């Protein structure tokens, strides 16, 4: 089984600043994917960014980027130029095949 650990239950960031959310995982698989999902209050989860484990290059998606350290099994999310709309619960996840494994989430507050 795979496990995902998010050690920061809550984080806050000043608007326009940068914040990094941490995630570590454990897997014995060689082929897997990593994800960050965002869940705004009372809304469904949406995919923020995805990383294929076989790719060395870190994925980026506009203001969102990851720092993928495969040997350390670390997959952090950096949000640049934070906006009020970034306030949400962020879940790190890993998958092999059709099974997804989620972390417990980090609640991000954006301070105006």
């Amino acid at each position, binding site marked *: 089984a795979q496990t*995902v650990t998010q050690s920061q239950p809550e984080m806050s960031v000043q608007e326009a600043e940068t914040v990094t959310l941490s995630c570590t995982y454990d897997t014995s698989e060689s082929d*897997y*994917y990593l*994800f960050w*999902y965002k869940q705004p209050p*009372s*809304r*469904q*989860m*949406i*995919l923020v960014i*995805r990383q*294929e484990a076989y790719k060395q290059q870190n994925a980026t998606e506009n203001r969102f980027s990851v720092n993928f350290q495969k040997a350390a099994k670390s997959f952090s999310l950096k949000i640049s130029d934070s906006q009020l709309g970034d306030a949400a619960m962020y*879940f790190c*996840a890993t*998958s*092999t*095949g*059709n*099974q*997804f*494994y*989620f*972390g*417990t*989430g980090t609640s991000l507050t954006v301070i105006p």
Partner: protein
Amino acid sequence: EPEVTQTPSHQVTQMGQEVILRCVPISNHLYFYWYRQILGQKVEFLVSFYNNEISEKSEIFDDQFSVERPDGSNFTLKIRSTKLEDSAMYFCASSVGGLATYEQYFGPGTRLTVT
């Protein structure tokens, strides 16, 4: 933009009762999933479904659980005899293809409360 929908948003039931949670996946999606999240805990995978069959299931998905696609649009999760520990948020998701290369689109969830 197409969305996954779930009904009801909140279901309260008594222990031992059967519940059916309903989901309408995005119309051209072929893979369907159920997850649950007990309050304060992580989102847990329950089951994936493709071509009218379960393709993968977790240890949580025991004989008390079943899934069905009764028609061309709905995807249901049935819990036969609910227990207090079944109280959780249940999320449905769908994707165009299987494997993690395809994005899963999540519904807003159904909060199940077992009393």
